């Protein structure tokens, strides 16, 4: 098989429509007393309108720092140190703070895991949505309430006129997440970044929110970047999946291929770690060890110390993300593992 090194997103994944978001070789660094760390280290990806990219990884893999980097929200002393983030063709890296703020919320919006920390407890739900609308759109003052009620109705909140005057603490966790989504969509963004949007929710409520995101995407045609640790959630809503490990994308494929034909040993291990609902497995396949801290990354392949297939060469040379099949790339010298005993 011809192995091709990729500088950007895997070409076979290049979507037919121009991507809403195109990220190339993104690097985010932090200066720490232990030296410079790179929580995001050379990430490339793209999302087309109306599509959902799932970014999966465990804690410490850099997925949340990646989402903050996309939004230009990396907290100091961190900074985006290299690469490119293009939103609808416009370069965001290096944009002045003011220009960036205009993009944020207008063309790209973000929702987080815990809506309570993102909602202001002393303002009504309606007031906060009105504020979001006013910040991004020219709507006559007399129309603001109606627009906000409509936004609540769009996210399927029952009795939106009544909810408008309630405070966040009066809402359940699922309702709060709906309000967050309503605020995020108030500006009709082209891209929604959802960072673990259902992790704090119960499973029946999670199903409702995932359903809602799918419906809203079909209605608005927005692209979604969904960041999650849960392969089940990814399987339910993503079109494409990027698996992250220690700051890098180690595998990138259409969602079907990730589950039917996983190539990277980390992906294989993650799938084996998940208990299954339809059968009793005597033992789960656990991945040994833990994710290395960013200031103590091993040389060579970063997964090699935990990888059952890793050999001396893996521990020396860093594998590039290379195409293994149509639209499917993996950063592993041993992929597919049955061909490299």
């Amino acid at each position, binding site marked *: 098989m011809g192995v091709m090194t990729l500088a950007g997103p895997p070409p076979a994944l290049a979507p037919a429509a121009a991507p809403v978001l195109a990220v190339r070789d993104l690097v985010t660094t932090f200066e720490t007393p232990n030296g410079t760390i790179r929580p995001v280290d050379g990430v490339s990806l793209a999302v087309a309108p109306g599509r959902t990219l799932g970014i999966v990884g465990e804690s410490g893999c850099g997925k949340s720092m990646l989402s903050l980097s996309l939004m230009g929200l990396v907290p100091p002393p961190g900074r985006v140190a290299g690469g490119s983030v293009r939103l609808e063709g416009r370069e965001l890296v290096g944009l002045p703070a003011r220009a960036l703020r205009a993009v944020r919320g207008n063309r790209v919006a973000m929702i987080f895991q815990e809506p309570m920390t993102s909602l202001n407890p002393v303002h009504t739900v309606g007031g906060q949505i009105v504020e979001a609308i006013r910040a991004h759109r020219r709507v006559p003052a007399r129309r603001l309430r109606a627009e906000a009620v409509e936004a609540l109705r769009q996210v399927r909140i029952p009795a939106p006129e009544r909810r408008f005057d309630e405070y966040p603490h009066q809402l359940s966790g699922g309702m709060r997440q709906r309000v967050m989504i309503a605020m995020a969509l108030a500006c009709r963004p082209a891209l929604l970044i959802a960072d673990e949007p259902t992790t704090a929710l119960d499973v029946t409520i999670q199903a409702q929110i995932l359903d809602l995101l799918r419906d809203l995407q079909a209605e608005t045609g927005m692209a979604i970047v969904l960041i999650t640790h849960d392969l089940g959630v990814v399987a339910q809503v993503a079109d494409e999946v990027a698996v992250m490990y220690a700051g890098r994308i180690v595998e990138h494929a259409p969602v079907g291929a990730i589950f039917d034909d996983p190539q990277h040993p980390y992906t294989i291990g993650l799938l084996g*770690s998940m208990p299954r609902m339809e059968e009793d497995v005597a033992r789960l396949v656990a*991945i040994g060890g833990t994710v290395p801290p960013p200031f103590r990354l091993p040389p060579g392949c970063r997964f090699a110390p935990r990888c059952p297939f890793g050999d001396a060469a893996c521990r020396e040379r860093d594998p590039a993300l290379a195409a293994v099949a149509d639209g499917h790339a993996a950063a592993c010298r041993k992929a597919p593992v049955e061909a490299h005993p």
Partner: protein
Amino acid sequence: MTQPPRPDPIPATTPLLELRDVSKHYPVRRGLLRREAGAVRAVDGVSLHVDPGETLAVVGESGCGKSTTARLALRLVPASGGSIRFDGQDVTDARGPALRRLRREMQVVFQDPFASLNPRMSVAEILAEPLLVHGVGDAGARRERVRDLLRLVDLAPYHAERFPHEFSGGQRQRIGIARALALSPRLIVCDEPVSALDVSIQAQIVNLLKDLQRELGLAFLFISHGLAVVRHVADRVAVMYLGQVVETAPKAALYGDPRHPYTQALLAAAPEPDPARRLARTPLAGDVPSPLDPPGGCRFHTRCPATQAHCRSEAPALRPRAAGSGHAVACHFAESIPAFTRFRDPRPRPPRLQARLALYEARRAAPTP
């Protein structure tokens, strides 16, 4: 109105732990005079039992009362009603020496291993503390026991001198488990022991708990919201909703033929790691009602897809399905609702994943050169 005591399917032998019609009501006080304005019925008439050496999982969503049930069983909070037995002895109101004895027999592992470990104590001190409190052994024997405990949970002897902050989440949970094992209990209450951990670490801890159970003959009361994890660890399962057990069954029956609409909805809502089986529609609308003012009749009727007039007026009792099946359901229509069969038959993994997992395991078993 409270319901009549509902029999948990009758255990064959003396259960290790038995809760009979146990309730926990928290008074709600309002106004200047802090008058009692009502009560949160966190747990309302729960009966369940755990046999020696088995795992009973209690599942449900937040606010269903599963953690309060765990606390009641541990005697960390007093019950408002009902009785708790350990090894045949009534321990509902045990105090003094009897309670100390109970504490040796029944230990707990919490969800957040960091919050439950004293950051100023070394691992050796953390593990020796229960022994010290209960006056077990001398200093030498305790050191020996700490070494044994570390080995049991696959930690190295040198870890004894380290402090909690030096460990990863998974390792901290191993320390929490080692501490629970220190007094050689017969029952461990595991309150969401893997919920805060990454999936690959969850698998390590779940495997460890199962190994320990086999090796030491432990019984587990396993509290969880994750139905997939429960399928993997439990022998029997009790599903809770708004403070009550709505269905209890041996694992195979619960996943293969759930008969309560809520159990079915919980199973249907779990996101399956299979893009070929996407959920068509949300299985359950609405939110859980407040336990301060639970709906009359069947508490699930406000969200139930199969509600009928009868459900709004009369609370269903937890009724056994067939004698000896150990399967009981609190639904008026348990016999007639449509079956939910998605998880009845094992579904093989995709062949390439299966083959690579087999290779993965073989390689893990045989360390690479």
